[in-house]
């Protein structure tokens, strides 16, 4: 199964049907398929923090959702994570299309992407780098279980080693 299909299946198996996102070229390979799949309710957002607010609200009403974003947009999420999800214990899995790795062509994408793991560490949030298709199923399913058991967001970093990065 292709990496994008493995992620989609993992979300379906966990009954995660609300998908809030700010698109980018990497995650669109997953999101584009979800847009055509009636299982998912897709919520394009103007900004990443907004996506977190929406999915957090859905959780407070008993429905599970996920957030997709690019690594550059992760910087827009810090206040929501720090002042909503962590103190109120509102979990959700997020998927971050990583720029700034092998193959990066845009200098402006590198510093923000390199900061993502450090920011997650500072916030005390767990994350996993997705680099290989053969580990994907275990990490996705395990990460989602961890997320709801610990009642905190968990991040999945989509490495360019898995995705091939984005075209120029």
């Amino acid at each position: 199964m292709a990496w994008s299909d493995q992620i989609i299946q993992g979300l379906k198996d966990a009954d995660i049907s609300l998908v809030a996102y700010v698109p980018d070229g990497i995650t669109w390979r997953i999101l584009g398929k979800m847009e055509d799949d009636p299982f998912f309710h897709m919520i394009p957002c103007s900004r990443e923090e907004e996506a977190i607010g929406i999915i957090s609200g859905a959780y407070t009403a008993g429905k599970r959702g996920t957030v997709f974003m690019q690594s550059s947009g992760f910087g827009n999420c810090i206040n929501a994570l720090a002042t909503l999800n962590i103190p109120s214990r509102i979990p959700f899995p997020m998927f971050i299309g990583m720029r700034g790795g092998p193959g990066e062509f845009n200098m402006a994408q590198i510093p923000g992407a390199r900061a993502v793991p450090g920011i997650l560490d500072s916030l005390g949030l767990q994350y996993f780098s997705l680099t290989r298709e053969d580990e994907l199923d275990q990490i996705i399913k395990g990460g989602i279980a961890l997320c709801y058991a610990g009642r905190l967001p968990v991040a999945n970093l989509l490495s360019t080693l898995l995705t091939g990065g984005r075209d120029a």
Partner: protein
Amino acid sequence: MLRVDAIQSVLDRVKDEPIIANLGGTTFHLHNLSEQRDANLYTWGAMGLSSSIGLGVALAAPDRKIIVMDGDGSLLMNLGSLGTIARQDPKNMIHIVWDNHQWGGTGGQPTHTAGVTDLAAVARGAGIPKVEAVSTLEALEEVFDRALTEDGPWCIVADVEGGDKPNRPDVSLEENLQRFRKTFAP
């Protein structure tokens, strides 16, 4: 119109509809006026996100009317939310903005709505189908009664006086969340 009276007026008109409150004065007032109400969700941070949280609740519970109590300073921080709400078109969402034209929690500094910015016009431009601006309690009550029965999404921008200083309640965030969640249990 005093914000505290306007919030009481909304409380007088609802039964068990979920209410999501913006941080600061609105959360304080709502809690102080209806401490025992399980369907209140308070926010203590995440400035700007109450309308987004409310949209998520509205999408997750399409059979219930959802009320968001936002503020002008907060909504100005997340104007894109109005476009997202319009695009998702949740018929069950009532987004009230208590517009006191100031950042009330930080010393009353004037926001953009104290000058030239018209949040009702912004909401209309974003594509919200039902937008009303009200400046009296009677007008608020009339519009809110309609919003409870007519499809939305609604955005009601209510002009309220600034300067109120409600007492800060002592609330556990986790307890509030779990209590609110239970109101959605099947």
